[in-house]
């Protein structure tokens, strides 16, 4: 700008015109290419950064949109409604009413209960299998393991989490199912235990990683104080570290459960996909996610069946959304607490 001033002085212009020139120059500068590019670039980055948030909203809107006809479309409601999905349905006049999922029969029935039971059975077994191993492994790795040992454990977990779920499903289908049937004599080769264990293998890395993070982030001041009071190492672990890290471990378990509910390929391949309600864990099961995967390809666009499958998707989405929010809240609180104590 001093050039303008010098110019003005040289031409001995009155100060009013000097100011006029200055403002003109400033406007000119604003219009120069780099500033416009700068402005647009910043706007693009800003707008783009909302993509993830926008995607979440879009996912909900577009899945729920396809499920909506269940609630108002009369034509579709003849076949399926919320009541029909929840309560018992009779197959034909005079037959006993039952909970059944038979979307492809002449008189299609869409009771969600068999799928719900199946999903829960698989997730339950997965958690029974994965939580002791995942949490136990995390405790060992964070409390007892030597540095060299930890260098072995870390890659093991990373390799396990790197196995694609379709490969775990393949392994459960071809190898694990035969092994389990030979050892325990199940009537059905593909059953909830087979699917649950394979699912557990996908859950272990989640439970392990989050639990270990929580255990490691317990501040040393706490441990040092206990050690100073005469506690030995494992007493410190079990009276100080574990209780302090408990919320983190709980969050790991909750998020692992979310994964177990939503995982598709493993249960699709390893569970037998029979929608039956039974308390026998040796029976085949059919889960929400596997039902969508197995049936969506053959369904008529816009039919009642199509809407029901999107409704299942909506349920899955809402459920995992709540679980993730819950897990996040626990982890954030824990993080705040640990940092608060460290300072």
């Amino acid at each position, binding site marked *: 700008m001093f050039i303008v001033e010098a110019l003005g002085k040289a031409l001995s212009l009155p100060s009013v015109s000097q100011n006029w020139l200055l403002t003109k120059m400033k406007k000119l500068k604003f219009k120069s290419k780099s500033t416009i590019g700068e402005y647009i670039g910043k706007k693009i980055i800003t707008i783009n*950064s909302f993509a993830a948030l926008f995607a979440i909203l879009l996912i909900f809107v577009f899945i729920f949109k396809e499920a909506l006809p269940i609630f108002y479309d009369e034509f579709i409601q003849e076949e399926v409604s919320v009541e029909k999905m929840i309560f018992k349905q009779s197959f034909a006049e005079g037959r006993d009413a039952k909970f059944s999922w038979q979307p492809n029969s002449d008189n299609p029935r869409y009771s969600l209960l068999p799928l719900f039971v199946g999903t829960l059975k698989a997730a339950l077994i997965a958690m029974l299998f994965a939580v002791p191993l*995942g949490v136990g492994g995390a405790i*060992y790795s964070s409390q007892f393991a030597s540095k060299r040992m930890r260098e072995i454990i870390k890659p093991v977990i990373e*390799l396990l989490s790197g196995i694609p779920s379709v490969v775990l499903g393949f392994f459960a289908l071809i190898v694990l199912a035969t092994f389990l049937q030979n050892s325990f004599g199940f009537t059905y080769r593909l059953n909830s235990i087979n699917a649950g264990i394979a699912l557990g293998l996908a859950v272990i890395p989640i439970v392990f990683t989050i639990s270990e993070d929580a255990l490691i982030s317990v501040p040393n001041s706490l441990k040092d104080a206990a050690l100073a009071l005469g506690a030995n190492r494992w007493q410190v672990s079990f009276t100080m570290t574990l209780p302090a890290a408990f919320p983190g471990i709980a969050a790991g378990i909750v998020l692992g459960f979310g994964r177990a509910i*939503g*995982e598709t390929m493993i249960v699709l391949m390893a569970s037998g996909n029979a929608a039956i309600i039974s308390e026998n864990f040796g029976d085949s099961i059919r889960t929400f996610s596997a039902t969508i995967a197995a049936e969506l390809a053959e369904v008529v666009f816009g039919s009642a069946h199509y809407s029901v499958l999107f409704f299942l998707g909506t349920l899955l989405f809402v459920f995992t959304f709540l679980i993730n929010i819950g897990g996040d809240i626990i982890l954030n609180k824990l993080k705040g607490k640990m940092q608060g104590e460290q300072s």
Partner: protein
Amino acid sequence: MKLTIEKLHTASNITDQFKPKSSGIIPKGLTLIAVLIITSILIVILGNIILGGIGIISWDFLSSPPENGMESGGIFPAIFGTVALVILMTIAVVPMGVMTALYLNEFTTPGSKITRIIRIGINNLAGVPSIVFGLFGLGFFIGFIGSGIDSIFYDSGRPVWGQPAIIWASLTMALLTLPVVIISTEEALRTIPQDIKDASYALGATKLQTIRRVILPQAMPGIFTGAILAINRGAGEVAPIMFTGAAYYLPYLPHKLNDQFMEMGYHIYVMATQSPDIEATKPILYGTVLVLLLLTFMLNFVAIILRSKIRSKRLTI
């Protein structure tokens, strides 16, 4: 502080209860067993797949198409489809992820409301089940965007874009892998010292110039790690592409964006569940699984090495 004192009380109570010399061998042993079980399961799975698949892998297997209803021949179209899918996905996801990470780290103060909301979005996107992404791809990309393009630009009755296609599958996969790219880019951005950025601004550089010349070059390893992890995830996921573009079998390779394609993970699923004679397809099945595993492990390995380099850099600064 309050908590600490409470804890100290409990600790001192407990130490009174136990003999000071109890060694803790039982908890140590029990948790060690957990580690050993996890490790041996991993060894069994990998050993089984390697032993089952190593015999079939050859140049012919990798470079020829399936024959006789997948009972012989190779998996070349599936490898080609997987590579095409992840390339398209990477082109879509990396700019999006990097820009989001830049915004979160350079444009807003950490902990502000906007940042928190966006972070909640990212965390939740990471937790959405993959099958839900598949439904979304079908409802949004194919049913809304694809059909929309068809109804505006094409008036023939046949769908051109409103059908399963590799472009929709890769865009769906890009959304699924978006959190991965954002998180690892952010990790790299945090390692860049404020001094360097300040120096750039002091020299008169604008924000975008600083980003382009100073921040992005420094963050490159992190962006690269993010892309590799995203590719790793994208190559392994099957549920999102089942309805958005993957095909059982195609006699030709995809050569347009709206073609369907074959993919390794989907190929495994199809061979394992739909084959009329599982014993006959088993060798090829094992071979395909081994190729997919080798691919994902290789990518993982590169990502781990890159990430440890970034972390050690952060320590030295």
